[in-house]
Structures are given as structure tokens and as C-alpha cells.
């Protein structure tokens, strides 16, 4: 499909966050936190609930006015306007059909929708036949696939994902991980998740956020390239180790 030229965004920059700080009702969620996201790679951020993973992601996406921190892109340009964001909720607008939800960004920027690109993405997520359906007529997995298509339609070099598959059943989640793993290639991605297997399947690098104020562990890279097979025995061994580490840190 390279001739279509849809799926290569501008060169994806690396991202460096430093001095991140967020106080919530007098408690420091994180303070002077640093984070490195390598260019064109998927980094997965793991950690227990309430540790501040989503707040950190919102800070990077420019959605958290209460948090502060210095965000730099490796190419020196501003990050603003080069980010696509995907949340745990599909956030589909119920009054728009599937294809209009995918092209919502163009509607908001008052640009005409790119028909070919929209169709191509809907084919990739397997929903080309449902282009005219309303979200209410779709299953949870289908809705999240539309949300994935909408995220990719933005064609941004940087993608922030906040537990995008957490609300799905196990089988649907595995399918969507396969799909996302392929489609996210070449972009700088930060994927927040509480599922160690998801992180091991999709991440080039894994980061663990724990403690209060939260600290980020050394980056850890599983062998091989994502998306990794879920039944890979080495992956399962790593999952057990990762779970043990998460539990230890939570207990500490």
C-alpha cells in the first residue's frame, strides 16, 4: 500500500519530558519526573491504578492544565498539533455515523474529509461495510476499532493512548492489539495500560510507574519486535516476572 502513501506520517520525533509535576489536593502525584519516548517506537507505561499514569499522559497531550513539565521533541519543533489521542472510552459521537466519526478531526478543522483515506482505514479495521452505521448499532469492540481508525485518520507522528483496550473482553482485546500493533508502526507511541501482557505484546520499551510521588523504572525491552504473539512462552515468563515486580512495588 506504500504507493497510496497514507500510512507514513512525517518523521516521528522522539519526546523528552522533564521536571513534570502534579499536585492534587496537597499530595504530590509526581514531582520532577522525567520520561523519554524514543522516536518511532512504542513505549508502554505500566503501573497500579491511581498512580498517575493517565495524568502523565494528559500532561504530554496538553490536556492537563493543572500539571506542569517541559516537553521537548527531538526535532526541536513544537509538539502541539502533531499528536493524536485515544482514550479508554471510544468517545464516538452518537449523532454521527461511523465514517463521519472517523473524519471528525477534519470537520472540526473545517477541512473536507479525505474519502480515500477514510475508506482505506475502515477497511484496515474491518468496518468498511459499516461506514453508514450509527455507533449505537455497533458492539464495544467495533466501536473501539472505529476509535482506532479515527486516531489513525489524524495521521499524526505521535500517538498517546490511554488504556485504549481496557474496556474490551479478552478475545476482542487480543484482536485489537494485533491490529493496533501493525498500524502504529513507525510512530512515536505512548501506550498507558495496566495489562502486563498488552505491554509485552505491543511495546518496544516498557516503563513502570510506581510510588507516591511516582517514579519511573528503568526502561525494559522484551526480545523481538511487536506485535508479539500472545502464546510466546518467553513472553509468558516475562509476564510472570513483570507481575511479580508490580506486586512487589505496590506492596512496598
Amino acid at each position, binding site marked *: 500500500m506504500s504507493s497510496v502513501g497514507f500510512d507514513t506520517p512525517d518523521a516521528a520525533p522522539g519526546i523528552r519530558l522533564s521536571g513534570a509535576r502534579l499536585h492534587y489536593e496537597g499530595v504530590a502525584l509526581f514531582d520532577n519526573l522525567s520520561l523519554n519516548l524514543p522516536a518511532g517506537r512504542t513505549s508502554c507505561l505500566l503501573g497500579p491504578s491511581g498512580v498517575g499514569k493517565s495524568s502523565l499522559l*494528559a500532561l504530554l*497531550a*496538553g*490536556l492537563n492544565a493543572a500539571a506542569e513539565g517541559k516537553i521537548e521533541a527531538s526535532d526541536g519543533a513544537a509538539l502541539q*498539533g502533531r*499528536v*493524536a*489521542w485515544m*482514550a479508554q*472510552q471510544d*468517545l464516538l*459521537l*452518537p*449523532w454521527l455515523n461511523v465514517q463521519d466519526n472517523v473524519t*471528525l*478531526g477534519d*470537520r*472540526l*478543522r*473545517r477541512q473536507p474529509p479525505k474519502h480515500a483515506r477514510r475508506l482505506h482505514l475502515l477497511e484496515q479495521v474491518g468496518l468498511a461495510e459499516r461506514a453508514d452505521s*450509527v455507533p*449505537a448499532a455497533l458492539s464495544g469492540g467495533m466501536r473501539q476499532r472505529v476509535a482506532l481508525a479515527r486516531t489513525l485518520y*489524524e495521521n499524526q507522528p505521535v500517538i498517546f493512548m490511554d488504556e485504549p483496550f481496557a474496556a474490551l473482553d479478552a478475545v476482542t482485546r487480543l484482536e485489537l492489539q494485533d491490529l493496533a500493533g501493525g498500524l502504529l508502526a513507525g510512530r512515536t507511541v505512548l501506550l498507558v495500560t495496566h495489562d502486563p501482557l498488552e505491554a509485552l505484546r505491543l511495546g518496544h520499551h516498557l516503563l513502570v510507574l510506581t510510588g507516591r510521588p511516582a517514579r519511573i523504572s528503568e526502561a525494559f525491552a522484551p526480545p523481538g519486535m511487536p506485535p508479539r504473539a500472545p502464546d510466546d512462552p518467553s513472553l509468558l515468563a516475562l509476564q510472570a516476572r513483570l507481575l511479580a515486580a508490580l506486586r512487589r512495588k505496590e506492596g512496598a
Partner: protein
Amino acid sequence: MGLLRAATVTLGLLLLWQALVWVTAVPPFILPSPQAVGATLVQRWPLLLGHASVTAAEILLGLLLGVLLGTIAALLLASATVLRRWLLPLLVASQAIPVFALAPLLVLWLGYGMASKVAMATLIIFFPVTAAFYDGLRRTDPGWLALAQTMGGTRYAILRHIAIPAALPAFTSGLRVATAVAPIGAVVGEWVGSSAGLGHLMLNANARMQTDLMFAALLVLTAMALLLYYAVDFLGRRLLPWLPESQPRS
């Protein structure tokens, strides 16, 4: 099925009414029998229709103006922070004044004609529409707003494509309330001082002890109000098919 139920209830109420008249043997100027009211309804139909058309015009004009002003006010409140600080307390305080108490003033200022009744209906409709729509505009899903923000939407684009469509269900509830109170505004206005309309007719009939005519006028008014309410309800469902309450009930 619903129609059958409605017909049964109506018939039951009519029978109850008739039984009450028979058992208590009240004089007709206190409570006329259903047949007497029915006969008056047929005999005086041209008269009733003439006054009903005046009241209907007052209600519809009031609804149009009230909804228009209410919509504009809600949009202003939602989009201009400075204006909101000044306008919101004023709006809330204005609701402490009973609108009915203003009716004599409105008649004094705008005369016995239609204008004072339209103003009365507009006043009574304005607030439920403003309150409901503004509330809806304020409660946009923060996730949608965050998404729109990352997509580079301007404030205007977010209002037009996200906040307003998302607030339409709240707007239609406000519209339903407005439709229900609109006839009250018009009729109260007519009671205070008027030369035509169903309220005027009822007041005159009352003074002449033509209770059957009063009841006939009341029936026409009720039918009009119901028709209006269901028309708005139907339109709301047709225009907002994605609402859960618009789905056919199983």
C-alpha cells in the same frame, strides 16, 4: 394499544362525570352533564373556533419568541464568561418574580390585544428553555472536549459540532416543558384583560353562568395543548433519532 387505553380512560372519566351528575343532582350551572357540554361544543363550534384560533396564535408566537430568545441566551451564557457573571444572577433573580403578577403590567403596557399575551407566553417559556439548554451545553462529556482539543478544533467549531448537538436532548426537554406551560401564559394573559381568546370566552361565560360553554372552551384548550405537546415530542424524536428515548420500546 396506547390509543385503546386512552379511549378507555376517556370513556371511564366521562361515565364517572355523568354518574356524579346523576347521583348528586347538582344544578347544571355548577356542573353540566357531559351531554350538555357536548351539545354546546357542537352548537357553539364557530364561536369556539374563532376564540381558539386567537389563543393558538398567541401560544405559537410566544413559543417561537420564547424558544428563540431562550436559545440565544443559553448560547451567550455558555460562550461568554464575562457575560455569564452578569447575566446568570439576573436571570435567576428574575425567576423569583411570579410571571402571573406581571400580567396586569403587561396588559397596561401592551394593551388588550394579542401583544400582551404573546409577551406573557414568551416570558414563561424563556426560562425553561434557557435553563435546560444552558445546562446541556455545560455538561458536554469532558472526553469529547479533550478529543476535539487534540484535533485542533477552534472554540467555535467545538461548540457547533460537539457541544450544541450534545446539548440537544437537554434542549428538547426544555422545549417540552415550554410547550406545556405556553397555554398557561396565554390564558392567564387573557384573564387579566383581553378582547378575544379562549380565556376571554371562559371569563365571559363564567360571568353569565354559561358553565357548559366554559367546559367546552376548556376542552378545546386541553385538546390544543395536548396536540401541541405531542407534535413537539414527535418532532424531537424524529430529529434526534440517536437518543435512547427515541428508540422504539420493546
